[in-house]
């Protein structure tokens, strides 16, 4: 149960396991996807509220809302209280990251992915394929498609006899590792054509792998409407359009990390993660680690302590979507 204490502006996760109550630290974004729940619990003299049972919730959230057991006893003051449960996008992303890994580990998908990336370090053209399930629930993949003349390859969102769940494509050594702005729009188009298409992988020439997943479809659709591809994407550079707000923010973060001595690819990774968060795109970008796990990438913006006209940027494990 996640309890949002409006008084102390804190969020705690209360778990009851084997009769013991634990309070692990979590991070969560307040003010989004909130539901209000009424609890029975103790109101201590110092103003803190200790819930002992969930009575009911009002609102809309997919966070867990099960209450703990009852209990009447020796608390300082018995009573009720209203708290707000906040959904945990970091938890949702964690689950989707696990699902993304499991999908790639499926033997049918894995074998096609291995074929796709076998020569990625030297390929001149991008390659891509999609995967899903047939009517019997068996995993299937599409054939591998190959782009032409160094241009991007289109990823199929629908295929006869298969309900496609996702797709992956390569980035050749001439292309930056990170998914491009064009990939963000392509993912939205794919999901628009087939709502089951929820995982979008990018396999870079140096072996780095990325995964886009949808965090909030409404926000994803709002983003591509508000920041249309025509107005914000440069087909020549295949990047955000020069002079656009997104490009300015992208460049700000990119130059910050380059100034810190990071590689161009790492600076692009971080800049992409930052604009995804800043423009509330409704998606998340994860990067595969050495264990094959996809870890969401977040970049935090903070005011400089000594000069408030400057912002600082750092990679953070805390979800800021």
């Amino acid at each position, binding site marked *: 149960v996640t309890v949002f204490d409006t008084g102390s502006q804190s969020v705690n996760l209360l778990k009851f396991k084997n009769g013991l109550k634990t309070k692990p630290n979590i991070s969560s974004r307040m003010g989004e996807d909130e539901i209000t729940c009424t609890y029975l619990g103790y109101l201590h003299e110092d103003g803190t509220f200790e819930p002992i049972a969930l009575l009911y919730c009002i609102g809309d959230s997919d966070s867990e809302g099960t209450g703990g057991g009852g209990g009447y006893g020796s608390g300082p003051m018995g009573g009720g209280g209203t708290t707000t449960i906040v959904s945990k996008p970091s938890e949702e992303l964690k689950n989707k990251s696990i699902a993304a890994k499991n999908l790639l580990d499926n033997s049918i998908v894995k074998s096609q992915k291995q074929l796709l990336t076998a020569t990625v370090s030297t390929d001149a053209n991008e390659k891509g394929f999609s995967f899903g399930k047939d009517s019997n629930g068996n995993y299937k993949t599409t054939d591998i498609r190959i782009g032409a003349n*160094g241009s991007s390859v289109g990823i199929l969102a629908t295929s006869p006899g298969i309900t496609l769940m996702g797709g992956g494509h390569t980035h050749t050594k001439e292309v930056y590792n990170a998914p*491009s702005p064009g990939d963000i729009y392509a993912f939205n188009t794919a999901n628009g054509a087939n709502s089951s298409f929820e995982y979008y992988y990018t396999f870079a020439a140096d072996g780095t792998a990325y995964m886009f997943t949808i965090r909030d479809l409404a926000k994803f659709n709002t983003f591509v409407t508000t920041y249309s591809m025509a107005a914000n994407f440069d087909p020549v550079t*295949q*990047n955000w359009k020069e*002079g656009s707000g997104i490009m300015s923010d992208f460049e*700000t973060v990119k*130059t910050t990390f*380059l*100034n810190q001595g990071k590689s161009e690819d790492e600076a692009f990774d971080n800049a992409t993660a930052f604009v995804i968060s800043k423009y509330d795109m409704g998606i998340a970008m994860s990067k595969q680690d050495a264990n094959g796990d996809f870890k969401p990438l977040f970049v935090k913006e903070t005011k400089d302590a000594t000069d408030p006209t*400057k912002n600082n940027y750092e990679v953070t494990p805390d979800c800021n979507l």
Partner: protein
Amino acid sequence: MKIYIKLIVLSIFFFTVQIKAQSVTDTLQYLKNNFELKKSNYIGKPFSVLLTDLRIQPTQSWHITPFRKKNSVISTHFYFLKKGFTYNPSTIVLSIYWQEEIPRAAVEVYEKKNGYLFTSDERAFYGNKIAKDIKVYR
């Protein structure tokens, strides 16, 4: 006599301050009016021609590569930032597109040496490159 001298000195001081203030606040307009709108004077010519005509000099230069061609510099962004400042969304950009793509490795030699500052190295390096297009924006 002393009063006259003081007045003259003060007038020169205020005049200088005014000109300086104007050149700072009007950097965007200055660059737009004199280089973007008059780009035909500079396109097809070495970048040194434009640098010579610039009344204010860039302080930083950053290469730009297309997303799908990361080893080829197609343009360079010149910034007029004060010392210690880095690019931010309000930075004025003089964007020069090059007639011929420049290998990224060649640019990075100077960027690594000088930390993206626009020094005599960059002036010499970019000076003989031919401009294809000029954009100015904030």
